[in-house]
């Protein structure tokens, strides 16, 4: 697929996604304003209706909303007394969520790669079987449950880490670690299991290749053969999945944020729901979905740039 085609597909997807988000308010049984400010006066309600464009037909509202959206206007929070823009909160929250996702991905890879290599080399040993079972278990734990568990053990009981809150890394490294370690681990655990097993099965196949025997016949050390010769050709699936997985991580981050009260987009979303700010909610859903789509698109482009590898995979 050419880049132009991909961009076209991207744009169509974004349109559809934002349409859907907009459509949410239509799905709402009853009057959205009722939900937003159940105790307001008719005057206040009318003001809100005007501002949120609820008096206009759907497509007009969508167009207006999209137009504003592109310029950074994400709609407003409506209370009986005030109208505040959503964008402020979101722009603070997004970087936090993205940091969480990035750190989790890195941690997952750092742990999964050596484990994958070793379990492939020592496949069928007790170590391999044990890590297989552990991986299986890790996949069965719900993220939020794991989060609470870690919170309880390491924060409440042992007191090694804070259980809630966030300190950006730019402020203080130790503070950041104190707040970030548990959530990042929680988010990373499920991915570790998947990455490890993926790498393992590719490595096992690669280790049967002739060039590995040849490397052995050159007298190279096992470690060198595993990490310098076998790892690279085996990492294609892993990298592909890791890339595609960033989207999943975004979804998981939402949950982790609520568990650890981290002021990212997930917590903001939860607060919007709790306070029935459905207009804000709609904008946030759109933002999250768009980021998800953009990330996947970016990964797609990145992998096309890594073409020689993919080309190689096709020819071998």
């Amino acid at each position: 697929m050419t880049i132009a085609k991909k961009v076209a597909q991207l744009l169509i997807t974004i349109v559809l996604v934002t349409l859907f988000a907009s459509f949410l308010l239509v799905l709402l049984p009853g009057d959205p304003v009722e939900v937003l400010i159940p105790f307001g006066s008719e005057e206040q309600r009318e003001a809100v209706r005007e501002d949120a464009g609820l008096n206009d037909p759907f497509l007009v509202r969508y167009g207006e909303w999209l137009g504003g959206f592109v310029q950074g206007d994400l709609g407003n929070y409506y209370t009986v007394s005030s109208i505040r823009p959503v964008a402020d909160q979101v722009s603070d929250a997004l970087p936090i969520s993205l940091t969480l996702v990035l750190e989790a991905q890195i941690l997952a890879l750092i742990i999964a790669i050596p484990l994958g290599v070793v379990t492939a080399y020592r496949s069928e040993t007790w170590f391999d079987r044990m890590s297989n079972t552990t991986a299986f278990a890790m996949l069965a734990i719900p993220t939020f449950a794991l989060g609470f568990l870690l919170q309880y053990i390491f924060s409440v009981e042992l007191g090694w880490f804070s259980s809630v809150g966030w300190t950006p890394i730019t402020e203080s490294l130790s503070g950041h670690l104190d707040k970030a370690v548990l959530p990042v681990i929680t988010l990373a655990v499920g991915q570790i299991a998947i990455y490890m097993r993926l790498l393992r099965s590719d490595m096992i196949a690669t280790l049967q290749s002739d060039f590995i025997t040849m490397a052995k016949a050159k007298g190279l050390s096992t470690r060198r053969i595993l990490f310098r010769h076998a790892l690279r050709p085996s990492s294609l699936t892993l990298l592909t999945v890791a890339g595609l997985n960033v989207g999943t991580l975004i979804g998981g981050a939402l949950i982790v944020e609520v568990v650890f009260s981290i002021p990212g987009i997930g917590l903001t979303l939860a607060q919007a729901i709790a306070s029935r700010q459905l207009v804000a909610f709609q904008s946030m859903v759109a933002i999250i979905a768009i980021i998800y789509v953009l990330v996947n698109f970016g990964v797609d482009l990145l992998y096309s740039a890594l073409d020689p590898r993919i080309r190689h995979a096709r020819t071998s």
Partner: protein
Amino acid sequence: MTRQEVLVGAVPSGVTGSGPLLDVRNVSTSFRSPRGMVRAVTDVSFTLERGKTLGIVGESGSGKSVLSRTIMGLLPGNAERSGEVLFEGADIGGLSPAGYRELWGDELAMVFQDPMTALNPVMRVGRQITESLRFHLDMDKDEAKTTAIELLRAVKIPEPEKRFKAYPHEMSGGMRQRVVIAVALACGPKLLFADEPTTALDVTVQAQILDLLAEQQRQRYMAMILVTHDLGVVAGRAHEIAVMYAGRIVEKAPTQVLFSEMKMPYTEALLSAIPRLDQRSHSRLHAIGGAPPDLVNPPKGCPFSPRCPYVRDRCRDELPPLQESATTPGHAFACFYPVDSPETLEIKERIAAQQILATAPTLADSPNGGGA
């Protein structure tokens, strides 16, 4: 004599000394499999001097590849071996993995059959050579690069400086094999195994590669074991040839002697299976009928007996031992009724007579007209 010169084979690295370089004594290798022990190699013995080439010839399943890997020590986990492999006088059979790693690349090296799969596809060609150099010989980056380029030149790769940076898939099959050879020779090994080095290559390229191997071997005074299924490959290039069948050596002789005075019916069959230029076109290729024996439960008696055209009862009951010919020392074979024995000659005449009868024109075809 600089190090570089040694490594690129400009100067021989081998030293004439006492004793054979390689002394293989009663080596057997079996593999554990669900059906039982597969006896891939049984009771093989031979010696090899420095600077000499031994050709090991046999069909697939004859055990020739397993033999070379056994000597090298490259066997998988389910292999069991016995016997002694003496390299420069020391038994390398029971070495630990670390011990083997000392030898591999440095003293013993192997050239594999398929150059495409033998080279790491995501690593540049030059790097695959310099890796060995830096690992075994502690060279620094620049020295290794220069040496590698010289090696590429020595194996006759054009524009070696440019090829240094190439990836294997950017090269033709013949060039890749040259690279494989360069990698194998990089650290100046004393013994080189070439396991079907030309099978995966075009016919035109085959001769070039074999000549290259022979030249390198001569220059370096290196010992070489050339494993192949094709007698033609070893014809002009080995000093001695060992023919293997069903895991055993069935005939062994210096090359000239083998071709002029072969004894084993199997060797004779192998030879006649080679298509020759002087055969009439469209003459049938002589294939050896039947199939190789089961290596889990080998039959008693000579393993070739089911397929031998000159088989007699004794062949089926007793295993013929490998013994030296009385007349020609250095020529050993395992057959009760070799090709020049009276019993076999008798059978040969009968066969020849039948063939003449089969192809003879009938009276009806004779130019004198049909019968009355």
